[in-house]
């Protein structure tokens, strides 16, 4: 489990806000290189071919998105304060006094999101709109404009750390936890004969529309796909019926768009191999890359496995290393079952 924990932490700490995933992509490529040919798509997604499909053979695509939510610098004022917009669904309630990193072309600059001073905010429970927030980088207007460019991405400073019971807390675990699961899958399959073609896709821009997966799936034209993302693990303030639980295994998705046979295969593999799993039922779209991948070309038989996660889209997302490992075991088991055809 140490390997899995360290893998998750390293991926969490890597930076890759939607549309500028290059640093996270470089780390992922390096981690995948021992297991197959690695290439980068036009839109920056990372593909690792574990086994190229032979003529007429099934081709399984394992997808996890690589990008994380964050902010993007949209204006720099005369005094050096930055205005930002969101890249993906940022929870504005937690930005006050958050330590941030501005990722410029040349360097990483620290800053803090301005918080309203106590004497001006005594009873206010209103949350500022994103465009009304300011980031203080401690620079004069001249300096800030020299060193920071509009379009630079901003992340909340958060280093991955361990909680009790092999749980990990950090930023970007949506969806680096799943990236870790796919890399672990490649490790579990190493040296094994694979009965079908298998490609791993770590896709870009999921948080802003799923452009990375859509185009990479077109490029690969797989016959089957399993999309791995995170889903809600229950916490005291969340609706019970919309959540799974941490530490109870991958949440296997059930939705109109998802392929019934492939979904049942995932469930069967869990049962056969003693891997705990949960069901996540969605009435319409899944809100994940599965929506685009399933309708690629003439259609792709698609299933979903989600890693339960607490506090999604915060700098302190929490996952269980056991759930990540179980997800990898499930995916390796599905491939080795020989039942993808």
């Amino acid at each position, binding site marked *: 489990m140490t390997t899995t924990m360290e893998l998750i932490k390293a991926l969490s700490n890597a930076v890759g806000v939607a549309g500028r995933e290059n640093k996270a992509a470089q780390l992922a490529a390096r981690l995948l290189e021992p297991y197959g040919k690695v290439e980068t798509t036009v839109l920056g997604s990372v593909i690792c071919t574990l086994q190229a499909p032979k003529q007429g053979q099934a081709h399984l695509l394992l997808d996890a998105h690589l990008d994380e939510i964050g902010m993007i610098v949209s204006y720099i*004022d005369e*005094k050096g*304060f930055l205005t930002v917009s969101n890249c993906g*669904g*940022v*929870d*504005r*309630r*937690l930005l*006050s*006094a*958050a*330590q941030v990193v501005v990722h410029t072309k040349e360097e990483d*600059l*620290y800053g*803090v999101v*301005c*918080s*309203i*001073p*106590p*004497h*001006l*905010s005594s009873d206010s*429970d*209103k*949350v500022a709109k994103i465009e*009304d927030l*300011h980031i*203080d*980088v*401690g*620079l*004069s207007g001249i*300096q800030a404009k020299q060193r920071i460019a509009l379009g630079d991405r901003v992340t*909340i*400073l*958060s280093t991955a*750390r*361990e*909680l*009790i*019971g092999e749980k990990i*807390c950090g930023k970007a675990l949506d969806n680096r936890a799943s990236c870790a699961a796919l890399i672990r899958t490649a490790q579990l399959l190493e040296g094994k004969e694979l009965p079908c073609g298998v490609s791993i896709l770590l896709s870009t821009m999921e948080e802003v529309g799923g452009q990375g997966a859509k185009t990479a799936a077109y490029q690969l034209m797989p016959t089957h796909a399993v999309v791995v993302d995170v889903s*809600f693990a229950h*916490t*005291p*303030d*969340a*609706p019970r019926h*919309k959540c799974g639980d941490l530490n109870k295994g991958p949440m296997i998705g059930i939705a109109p768009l998802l392929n019934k046979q492939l979904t049942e295969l995932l469930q069967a593999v869990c049962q056969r191999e003693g891997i705990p799993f949960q069901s996540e039922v969605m009435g319409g779209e899944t*809100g994940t890359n599965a929506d685009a991948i399933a309708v690629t070309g003439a259609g792709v038989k698609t299933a979903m496995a989600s890693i339960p996660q*607490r*506090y*999604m*889209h*915060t*700098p*302190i997302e*929490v996952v269980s290393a056991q759930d990540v490992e179980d997800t990898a075991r499930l995916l390796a088991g599905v491939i080795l079952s020989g039942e993808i055809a």
Partner: protein
Amino acid sequence: MINLIERLSALPGVSGDEDAVRSAIIHEIDGIAPWRVDALGNLIVEKKGKKTPKNKLLFSAHMDEVGLIITAAESSGMLRFATVGGIHTAALIGKPVRIGTDGITGVIGTKAVHLQSGEERDKLPKLEDLYLDIGADSKEEALEKVRLGDRAVFDSSFLCFGEDCIMGKALDDRAGCTLLIEMIRSELEYDCAFSFTVQEETGTAGAKTAAYQLQPEIAIAVETTTASDIPDVGEHKTVCQVGGGPVVSFMDKGTIYDQELYRLAMETAREHGILAQPKAGVYGGNEARSLQTAAAGARVLAISLPCRYLHSPACMLKQSDINGTRELLMALLPRLAQL
């Protein structure tokens, strides 16, 4: 000086639990001046100068910081807490903390933004609805790691950034403690007393008893104060500027300061070419109110560092202000002693 601020900033010292900070300060001054710890936990230092002053002087800075106190563990393994000192809910959500002397990691979570209604996204949750997650799966497991009454501090980073700026937790008032340590280490012209006080953030209990036992004629609170020189704040509510030098108070919500001392401080700054600024607004308060009224009373002055984002994981100070404040304190000392 920045190194010392960084070391003190990292230590946990929520009100009533200042032991780690006190030990570190004792380590810094031991052998330089005699010290003692009083009944409440204040660290009292009396340093001999070259001469005996006409007025007995006390410089005071508080050791404690705002934070959390664990109030309950639930069957789910989640912890509940109360705030110690004034912390805005917005500064808590999504932040990691360190709990107790073992520094157990916990996080103040919130349900995912996807699960929030439009109204919820625009409104802060109530403080009493927040909870703390250490990863425990049951009440029993949680209580193996954490005891009720344990304090928790922000687990943020100490960072040097921008143009000579620093940020981190508890700079209020570890920066003040650092200035006092620097004074104790300096050669002083006159005898001086120093108090590193406890429980300022919860009612200035430490300052009351420290001033009672020392009975100074003049007491100076060395503090941090709110700088609101950020966008969208009206000029009249700015209070003071980061980079504007030490802040001298004439009045806040707790104290009307001695007018002669206030004028003397501003004048001394001017004469020594030290950039200084008045606290332009009657806001906040500090332990000067207790230094002023202990025993038969003392004339009080507050010299503060302009600090943005007070009581948050990321208090921000500028090095030039820290240096200027140190200079002003040293320049004021002989003048106050002989006033």
